[in-house]
């Protein structure tokens, strides 16, 4: 290999000599991972100061060799930028509705803060956004005054991801359901189903932006380009508050948002939580005394048609 020049930074800053003993490879990996996960400056450069308060050009030079064209810091910066560009692109792909309702001015600070608080904990990029709805609820200042609608959109978009690729189990046979005493019958919903109680009817926004093939990694290159060029986005129009209950599910490999009445939502919610059919119906009738048994039978017929129920 071509011999590299000594790190020029060391000449400038004699207080930061290279450690006498080379760190073990894991220590280098920990230092580099910490450095590349640090947020970029507004002009997409590596932060000039490292987490320990020293200049990043000094700390980078301690473990990264410069070459005749790039300093240690500049070599580190390539990876720092790739990290952020790749992960931001993933969340942009998975939450287009959230971006549409917040606009880029609020969306980018939100997802950057989210990634700082919740670095990826899964080898699969598709899991990256799983904590975003809870993060929005817990950090209201980042989305105020649109926290409710932002949270609703994020929950619906995550439910869409769950519906897209979570497993499906063989549905319970309707005759088994019919023949089991209601006080003994407990049911589970398919793993790809999410029940949502929303303050805003945000499904219209999300449906408009529904993608057929979400964030599948398109290749194995470790480069994402020199500049971050986000895709264009559509701004959502004004949405009036109206409580909306949805069941998000997959049928024949397409994702559907099924509107639910308040009574239907309550019944499914109780069943999903582990109540027997008899107990769930008791709660339903107490909350909605006008509910008729033929209504419940009709709902069940529809839900069984779509195979919503599996064995608990």
């Amino acid at each position: 290999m071509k011999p590299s020049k000594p790190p020029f930074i060391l000449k400038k800053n004699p207080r930061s000599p290279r450690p006498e003993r080379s760190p073990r490879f894991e220590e280098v990996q920990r230092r580099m991972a910490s450095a590349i996960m640090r947020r970029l400056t507004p002009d997409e450069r590596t932060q000039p100061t490292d987490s320990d308060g020293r200049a990043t050009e000094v700390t980078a030079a301690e473990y990264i060799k410069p070459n005749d064209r790039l300093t240690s810091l500049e070599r580190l910066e390539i990876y720092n930028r790739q990290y952020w560009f790749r992960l931001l692109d993933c969340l942009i792909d998975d939450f287009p509705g959230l971006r549409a309702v917040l606009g880029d001015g609020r969306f980018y600070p939100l997802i950057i803060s989210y990634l700082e608080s919740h670095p990826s904990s899964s080898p699969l990029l598709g899991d990256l956004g799983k904590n975003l709805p809870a993060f929005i609820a817990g950090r209201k200042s980042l989305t105020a005054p649109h926290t409710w609608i932002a949270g609703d959109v994020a929950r619906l978009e995550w439910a869409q991801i769950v519906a897209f690729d979570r497993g499906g189990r063989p549905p319970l046979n309707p005759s088994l359901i019919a023949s089991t005493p209601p006080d003994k019958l407990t049911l589970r919903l398919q793993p790809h189903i999410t029940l949502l109680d929303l303050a805003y009817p945000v499904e219209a926004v999300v449906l408009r932006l529904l993608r057929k093939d979400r964030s599948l990694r398109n290749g194995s290159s470790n480069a994402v380009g020199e500049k971050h060029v986000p895709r264009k986005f559509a701004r959502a129009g004004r949405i009036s508050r109206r409580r909306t209950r949805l069941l998000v599910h997959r049928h024949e490999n397409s994702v559907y948002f099924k509107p639910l009445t308040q009574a239907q939502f309550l019944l499914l919610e109780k069943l999903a939580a582990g109540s027997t059919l008899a107990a769930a119906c008791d709660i339903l009738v107490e909350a909605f005394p006008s509910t008729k048994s033929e209504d419940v039978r009709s709902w069940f017929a529809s839900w069984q048609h779509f195979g919503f129920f599996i064995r608990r």
Partner: protein
Amino acid sequence: MPANPFNGHTDYGVGIGLRVPHYRHILEKKPTIDWFEIISENFLVDGGRPLEILDLILEQYRVVQHGVAAYFGSPGPLDRGHLRKLKRLVKRTGTPWLSDHLCWGSVDGRFTHDLLPMPYTSEAAAHTARKIREARDFLEVPICVENVSSYTEFHISEMTEWEFLTEVSEQADCGILLDVNNIYVSSQNHGFNPLDYVENIPHGRVGQIHIAGHSKFERFILDTHDHPVLDPVWNLYDRAIQLAGHTATLLEWDDRIPSFNEVHHEALKATVYLEKKPALAAA
């Protein structure tokens, strides 16, 4: 080396990566192609459309799994949960070998989703080789490790990248997925002769070769997989085939993806080099 233990004793020809923009063309036109390489992690899901597409592809084509998240070089043990998912997919695809990168990408349960270059030390080689062996034993399929493109080097490195690749592959007794584009990119970024790399690895372990395009910037080259293969990379490929023999070859084209026919046409240029060098075992 058309067939060796590292590619499951297969004799695959020239394939391309299975990419979303080509799904419709492939499923409707059913083009003739030797094999597809899939990104394993795109199909590590429990159900839905990704697996439906995969099953349709598997009805018609041979598929080889290529991973981006095993991170054999990361600190700590293998991610057993990830391996279990991979094993389920291996059973589904029947992949004769499985590849992933000679790199690291996670630390203490936090993932960068990047293919980061290793510090080339003996300690790192032993650690990485141990994890590759464990993964192979668990997955029960041969593993080839791919050299990554890189933009940085570490002070603690004790050997060249090709010496590290050799050390790891021999200690792990695994195969090599030789990416000649990555060799070229790294050679330009680090100032070494790419032929030194190609000529000084254990050629009998090469189970597969990757070719791809890259992008030149003012002071470095990025491995962008968004161009046709450039001449210096074809020259390296030519040399690799001379040394390793007739080897399963795959074109990676991952960004600004043109039509299926254009990608396939570019991939088939490899046959010119393969036909110059019929099956030959290398020492």
